[in-house]
């Protein structure tokens, strides 16, 4: 059970939620989930674990069959949906489902125009969102002329222009080439660190969680099987095996180095390539001495 669940700085609180689809499939059951303001939470799990179903509850696309979801003190109910959707922005897995306007600029403007903001404010937000996502050059292009990475960035820009406090992303880097993946991760990191945005990311990519997340929820078969800081979750091999996942590459390399007799303490858990490079450099330098 999450230890900080009743803390006052929680921006999202989901209590005992359960969702049963019309065909009788129990997608999530008895879930306890919370997110603190300004943190990045990754929901990790294999395909079919219920990650997307959980995300869809956060801005009321789905309402729980049992239990409740509270965002910034407001219960997620049909009546509160307009308020909730101003706070929680959702980026879907497939950008082609989200980009429907004839040009990138028009798609980014869609949300603010629906909020009926003054036209000058809409243009300001569009400029800002295009700048943050690096899409100024392609603003007049139709979405079908964009690459996969650009489409994903356009989808994020469309939600950012609505200035949500919480950004919920479903598989933000699925199907992208390494460069586009790093660009998206850079944008999200910036939004969190400089913009103070709260991020909730559903992914089965452990590298994404290792780079971005402050906290991880591990899901399997519609239930949360673990919650905690990335280093703790990723160093528990048995737990990851239960969720059909592997630890991030730096941790796997450290394990192999230990097996080959390199003296690396058990409590050292590098999450990123930079942390691994620092660790290896330290080992090499101390070996020379």
């Amino acid at each position, binding site marked *: 059970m999450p230890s900080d669940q009743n803390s006052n700085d929680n921006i999202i609180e989901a209590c005992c939620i359960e969702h049963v689809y019309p065909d009788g499939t129990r997608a999530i059951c008895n879930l306890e989930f919370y997110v603190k303001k300004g943190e990045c939470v990754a929901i990790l799990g294999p395909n079919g674990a219920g990650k997307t179903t959980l995300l869809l509850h956060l*801005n009321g*696309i789905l309402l729980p069959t049992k239990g409740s979801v509270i965002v910034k003190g407001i219960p997620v109910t049909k009546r509160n949906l*307009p308020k909730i*959707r101003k706070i929680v922005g*959702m980026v*879907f897995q*497939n950008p*082609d*489902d*989200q*980009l*429907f*306007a*004839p*040009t990138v*600029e*028009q798609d980014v*403007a*869609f*949300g603010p*125009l*629906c*909020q009926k903001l003054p*036209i000058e404010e*809409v*243009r300001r937000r*569009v400029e800002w969102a295009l700048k943050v996502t690096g899409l100024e050059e392609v603003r*007049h*292009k*139709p*979405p*079908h*002329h964009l690459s996969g990475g650009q489409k994903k960035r356009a989808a994020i820009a*469309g*939600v950012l222009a*609505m200035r949500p406090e919480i950004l919920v992303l479903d598989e933000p880097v699925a199907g992208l080439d390494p460069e586009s993946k790093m660009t998206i991760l850079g944008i999200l990191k910036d939004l969190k660190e400089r913009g103070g945005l709260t991020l909730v990311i559903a992914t089965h990519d452990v590298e994404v969680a290792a780079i971005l997340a402050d906290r991880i929820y591990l899901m399997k078969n519609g239930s949360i099987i673990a919650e905690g800081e990335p280093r703790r979750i990723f160093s528990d091999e048995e737990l990851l095996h239960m969720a059909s996942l592997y630890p991030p590459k730096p941790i796997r390399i450290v394990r192999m180095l230990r097996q080959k007799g390199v003296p690396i303490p058990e409590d050292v858990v590098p999450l990123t390539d930079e942390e691994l490079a620092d660790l290896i450099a330290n080992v090499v330098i101390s070996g020379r001495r």
Partner: protein
Amino acid sequence: MGLFPDFWLINEYAENGDSPLHRIHPIAKLVTVLAITVLVVITYNLETLVALLLLTFFLCLLTRASPRYFISWLSVPFLFGFSISIMLPFTVPGRALLSVDLLLFKVTLSIEGVMQGLIIILKVVTAALAIFMVVLTTSHFELLYYVQKAFPRTLSVMLLLTFRYVFLVIDEMKRMREAVGARGGSLIRTFFENIKLFGNILGAFLIRTMERAERVYTAMEVRGFDGTIRLLSPHKKFSATDMAFLVSSLSSLSLLLWITTEVEILAI
């Protein structure tokens, strides 16, 4: 080069092409096309229609797209016009151009019927050319922006979504055709052998489309969609060049109408 207009090619040319017509304001081009269409609809004078066809073809040449494209794409409107007018030479009474005695009855082709058929084909082909001219040289967003303003709300939403998703549908169809081709099938060659399979493919395609429609609607709804797609107005301003283009194209059309009418009066 296909006989059917290639949407991807047209869209690419409209968005990234560079011709004198690309620089003209969409309203100036739309008014010109509207004027051509109105003239095409109201006139039954063969000379006027031929002159309109030549003028429209000249405007199409200004797009700097290969005339081969227009000519091949015109085959569909031509066949449409031809299918409407095929019976006219046999049914419209008038002077006989050709008469064939069959055993039980006599078949006569009338000059008036042939002329009426030709007029219908000219009307269809000229209107299609005028549309090719505008869709090849105008950013499709700008075109949709002005066209949808004339439509009721539901139709304008449908128009905007159709433009966006027609490309995805074409891609999806292409991928399915390739998947059939990769396993030795062909939508045409093995159509009758695999008719059940193609039925299943079409069914799957429809289900996929419906699922996508639901996902698109959900994505729109969470951004506050209330039944109206609001758009930012395009940046392009109506300049003196646009006005000059509009005035000169409308003057040319008036002059053309006047000359051909005069010729007809003189002939009478």
